[in-house]
């Protein structure tokens, strides 16, 4: 019988003093070692016996992981160790990247978010990751320290499958960079769970919109879906429809239908594929309409 309270399996906790040391250790123990940030996913999977790592390498506190910095000419840098609560409470995040704060606040509970990190949410690459859509639409790029030095990984090409990313053994993500958002950008994250808060998403819809003179409609709207594909799903058709056709009830309905037609969700314990598809259309329509209303049509 399964234990009611399985203990964590045995592993060694490693706290390297430098990024070089961390990357070397992780590369030398590929397949047996994992970087540790908040641990809120790692501990669950280790208790369940899904992950069997022999080493957890604590990369919190290493160079560049421990601050949130905003440069009005470049944008925002979120250190990998910054918790979701620290991100959502940060005045520059609230002012310039409100869609990220909105998404962060819909993850699990306050006390979980006081450990969980945004960078960890990204690296975990769950199709249900609540904050990933916002980070993609905000043009996020990860700073990565590996055994061969530092490099950048744009989120647009980062996700390869559930739990699978462009990261290699030895890679430590030190921070997430978000460029300055376009002027007048608004955004929101609508999450459908089995209850109003704290649950994993059945589906998640992240939308941003902003005035754009280069678009025939005068606006650019973008949409990403969670929990309906192996990776976060950017629906390019939404942007195409709403930048070329005048934005109105009909074009928004067409864009929402395109989101529904593009996604290919699965049946699982949280919901059926059919329900997911219908709710993708409904919540896409709701999110796009709300953003459109707020943009001041």
């Amino acid at each position: 019988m399964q234990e009611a309270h399985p203990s964590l399996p045995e592993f060694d906790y490693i706290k390297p003093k430098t990024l070089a040391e961390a990357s070397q250790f992780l590369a030398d123990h590929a397949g047996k070692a994992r970087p540790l940030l908040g641990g809120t996913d790692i501990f669950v999977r280790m208790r369940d016996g899904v992950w069997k790592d022999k080493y957890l390498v604590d990369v919190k506190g290493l160079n560049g992981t421990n601050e949130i910095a905003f440069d009005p000419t470049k944008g925002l840098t979120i250190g990998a160790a910054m918790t979701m609560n620290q991100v959502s409470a940060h005045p520059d995040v609230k002012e310039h990247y409100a869609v990220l704060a909105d998404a962060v606040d819909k993850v699990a509970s306050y006390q979980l978010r006081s450990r969980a990190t945004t960078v960890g949410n990204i690296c975990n690459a769950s199709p249900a990751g609540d904050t990933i859509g916002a980070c993609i639409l905000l043009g996020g790029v990860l700073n990565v320290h590996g055994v061969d030095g530092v490099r950048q990984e744009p989120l647009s090409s980062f996700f390869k499958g559930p739990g699978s990313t462009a990261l290699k053994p030895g890679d430590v993500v030190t921070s997430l960079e978000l460029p300055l958002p376009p002027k007048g950008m608004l955004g929101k994250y609508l999450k459908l769970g089995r209850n109003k808060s704290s649950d994993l998403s059945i589906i998640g819809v992240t939308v941003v919109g902003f005035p754009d003179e280069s678009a025939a409609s005068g606006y650019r709207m973008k949409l990403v879906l969670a929990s309906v594909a192996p990776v976060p799903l950017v629906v390019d058709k939404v942007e195409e429809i709403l930048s070329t056709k005048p934005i109105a009830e009909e074009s928004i309905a067409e864009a929402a239908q395109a989101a529904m037609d593009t996604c290919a969700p699965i049946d699982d314990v949280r919901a059926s594929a059919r329900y997911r598809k219908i709710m993708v259309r409904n919540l896409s329509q709701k999110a796009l309409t709300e953003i459109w209303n707020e943009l001041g049509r």
Partner: protein
Amino acid sequence: MAYHKITLTVNGETEQIDVPSNMTLLKMLRERLGKTGTKNGCSAGECGACTVMINGEPVNSCMILAVECDGLEIVTVEGLADNGALAPVQEAIMESGGIQCGFCTPGVLIASQALLNRNPNPSEDQIREALVGNLCRCTGYVRIIEAVQEAAQMQ
């Protein structure tokens, strides 16, 4: 498995402990320090029964390793009272009947106190949001929420 010597403060008292790598803060509190007020519910960061304050912020103690708490300040439910005088939130939850079986209560008290520390006059929505991570199967939450509102008045 590696052991680590850590020094931390629990309810104002400094403790030096040798902990194995895989020991959670929850297990250390209960099994090494005898602070059994903190409960083990789900071991998955969902029920909130194990909530303690770390440097003033509520944290699921099943979701953090003891070794990660080196140098930190922990407050458990045993540390809410001041010299035997219960905190307002403790008085209020008794008065309102926000307790039945009591298993969730330590986590509810810590999460509520942490909320009142960062927002002394929360709205009902803010209280509900702050307690999303504390599951109670007995009370239906109404009396817990009333207790936090009452405690805000008392403070």
